[in-house]
């Protein structure tokens, strides 16, 4: 018999919910408190939800005085946790990376370490990275900081 992987309804303790076990683990009898055995359990209360994701082109200007790029979003009761990553030269990069940048005159820099400075507010994200060839991925999570 194949392993039971999905449960919708009552578990053996009589609690309603949805559970999905990882391959090889029985959704009814294996330890639900072992995160290495389950991919989802509706008893989990610490799931973080995504408020907004998107991409935006980095603005073009001189490097020493980059303009602020604003990403507005519906207001939250806190400053949300945000992840931002640059995409340049066809590569998705870490948020502190090593790449070239191109200013408003078309001049391209040498390879240099580059971070993605940004600040968050309850309804807007301000990003301060200037490069004519960089796209930025942003993910705004429903978690306050």
């Amino acid at each position, binding site marked *: 018999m194949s392993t039971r992987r999905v449960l919708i309804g009552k578990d053996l303790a009589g609690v309603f919910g*949805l559970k999905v076990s990882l391959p090889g683990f029985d959704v009814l009898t294996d330890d639900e408190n072992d995160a290495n055995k389950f991919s989802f359990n509706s008893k989990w209360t610490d799931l973080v*939800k995504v408020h907004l994701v998107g991409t935006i082109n980095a603005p073009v200007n001189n490097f020493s005085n980059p303009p602020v790029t604003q990403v507005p979003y519906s207001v939250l009761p806190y400053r949300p946790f945000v992840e931002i990553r640059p995409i340049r030269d066809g590569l*998705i990069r*870490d948020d*502190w*990376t090593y790449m070239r940048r191109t200013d408003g005159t078309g001049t391209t820099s040498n390879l240099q370490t580059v971070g993605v400075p940004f600040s968050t507010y309850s309804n807007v994200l301000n990003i301060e990275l200037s490069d004519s060839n960089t796209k930025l991925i942003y993910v705004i999570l429903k978690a306050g900081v």
Partner: protein
Amino acid sequence: MVKRVIIGKRGTDYGLFISPPGVDADTASPDQLLVNLTLAVSQIVMIGIAPVGSNVVPLGFTRSPYVLLNTFQVLNNVSYSFAGRVRPSPFDVEASGATATINSNGLSMTVNSGLGCGFTVLNQAYT
């Protein structure tokens, strides 16, 4: 007893809805729901660790998904008795910063890292 799981119609929406214990999935606000598979928001579909080197990670998408990389750097600071992985990303990225290339419109991705990194793949495409 409150309803915790709805598969089908909730109000005017259809989908899968799961509420936390003690909250009725039928009347909970979208913000209260643990799972709401009718909204146009991303769900994280995969997290993993790419070891040092070049690693091809199967994804199975037909478009390029959002991917977040978190490079690991191990710091051993004797003065503060600290040893372990640290964030933010490594300062010496010149030699070790992680990158990811999406292959064949999201069929897989190649993660290159000199230190190893964690990756998060979202179930939403940016192309």
